[in-house]
């Protein structure tokens, strides 16, 4: 029986927290961003971002480079500290605490970790640990964080590796795997922790073109199984096929959002049109085919 990764069947995480809603609540968003902003010195990287992500929803963030989409995604894991607005995950404020005087201070590490338990993150550069085998990479946090016995953790890790199609590569070190395989191990590493939400930060940008497909296939499979996903991507095809919502960012703000067909087909927004036109020009050799499809 294949391991199910849909959030509805994963064990409720952090059940001791009073604010955690019990069981899936399709009505309320699992991630909620309100008026989120961030600046580096004088440069406003993010401005007034409002966004909700619901259970089993797949949200794709697109936009030109430097538009702040990666920063936004990293803020959702508090890898970047947002300094305005609030991000709530499952109803709990992420990364910050409000003290008695109503001032914002850093949440303690345990609190941050509790919030992050819901999240699995996949990075552009894979960020596998090169001195551990694929299996070791997946097992490490199960043993050290979850406190699962090593042989049990390895059994679970093998199931997840099998799911991403890499069971036979379990004993290999990352340096001996292709980029696509490494990224699939990275996905397995995140999945093994049974997150409710998967965040992908340009997961295919560092890959040779012919290796992109195998990673996207795994992601599609996840989406089909009902995983809640936020994906920063340049793969418009993937966004068009898989996303429930596409969000277009430019210069740190959300310019427009909607279903793929709303965004890709019907948009009247000039900056988005410009962005998509550039994108199509870059891939001009199959330009005509896409137009026919359209």
């Amino acid at each position: 029986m294949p391991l199910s990764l849909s959030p509805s069947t994963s064990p409720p995480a952090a059940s001791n927290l009073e604010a955690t809603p019990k069981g899936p609540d399709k009505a309320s968003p699992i991630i909620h961003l309100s008026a989120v902003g961030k600046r580096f010195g004088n440069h406003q990287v993010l401005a007034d971002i409002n966004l909700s992500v619901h259970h089993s929803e797949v949200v794709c963030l697109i936009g030109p480079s430097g538009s702040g989409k990666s920063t936004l995604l990293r803020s959702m894991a508090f890898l970047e500290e947002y300094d305005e607005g609030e991000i709530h995950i499952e109803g709990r404020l992420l990364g910050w605490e409000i003290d008695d005087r109503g001032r914002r201070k850093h949440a303690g590490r345990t609190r941050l970790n509790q919030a992050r338990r819901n999240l699995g993150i996949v990075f552009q550069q894979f960020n596998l640990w090169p001195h551990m085998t694929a299996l070791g990479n997946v097992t490490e946090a199960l043993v050290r964080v979850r406190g699962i016995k090593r042989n049990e953790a390895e059994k679970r890790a093998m199931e997840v590796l099998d799911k991403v199609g890499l069971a036979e590569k379990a004993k290999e070190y990352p340096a001996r795997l292709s980029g696509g395989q490494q990224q699939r191990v990275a996905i397995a590493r995140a999945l093994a922790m049974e997150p409710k939400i998967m965040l992908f930060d340009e997961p295919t940008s560092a890959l040779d073109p012919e290796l992109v497909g195998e990673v996207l296939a795994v992601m599609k499979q996840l989406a089909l199984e009902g995983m809640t996903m936020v994906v920063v991507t340049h793969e418009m095809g993937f966004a068009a096929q898989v996303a429930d919502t596409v969000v277009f960012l430019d210069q740190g703000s959300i310019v427009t959002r909607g279903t793929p067909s709303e965004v890709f087909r019907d948009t009247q927004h000039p900056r988005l049109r410009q962005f998509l036109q550039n994108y199509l020009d870059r891939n001009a050799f199959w330009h005509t085919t896409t137009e026919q499809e359209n």
Partner: protein
Amino acid sequence: MTFDLSIITANADAIWNAFLVTIYTWLAGSVLGLIAGLLIAALMLFGGRPLQRLLRVFIELVRGTPFLVILFLVYYGGPSFGLRLGAITAGVVCIAGYSSVYFAEIFRSGFAAVPRGQLEAGECLGLGRLQLMWRVQLPQMLVLILPSIINMLTILCKETAVLSIITVPELTAVLTGIGTRTFTFIETLLVLCIAYLLLIEITSRAGRWLERRVGTYLQR
């Protein structure tokens, strides 16, 4: 000029003991220096600003001072405020203190060489700072910094010769002593040179072997 190596065999016991003192001061000093260096590097990574500044000043001061002067300060300056170490102990302490700042710099560069993203990935999986340092940073950086550490060890091996000046009965002290007493300067110096060359060659060979062993995971 006569060349008479019998003086070496005649004093074999004394020379062997001196050799052991050299090895002891070198290795004990280096191991303590490695531990202290790791501690300094970790404190500079996790400690607050004031602590970082303080350690920075300590590192610069030690790096700016000749090893001989540090020896003089500790061994002859120490008693003026009650620090009365024996010569061998003082030698070990000085080698440890002197090397700790160099090892700290090596460790620091090692920590920095592990890509930030690998730590972020670990953080997101809930691994703690210490767990990450122990399981992710240290094993990787040990491979990266092994050549620097071996190099530093060979430098320290040579620095032990300076301990002869504060009466530590190590190789240089004993052999030059024998040379002056028996007027066999050339023979004793030649043996001295060969002994150090041997020690250093063995160290760097062991280092290269170790590098090959621990670096297996990097091989494609």
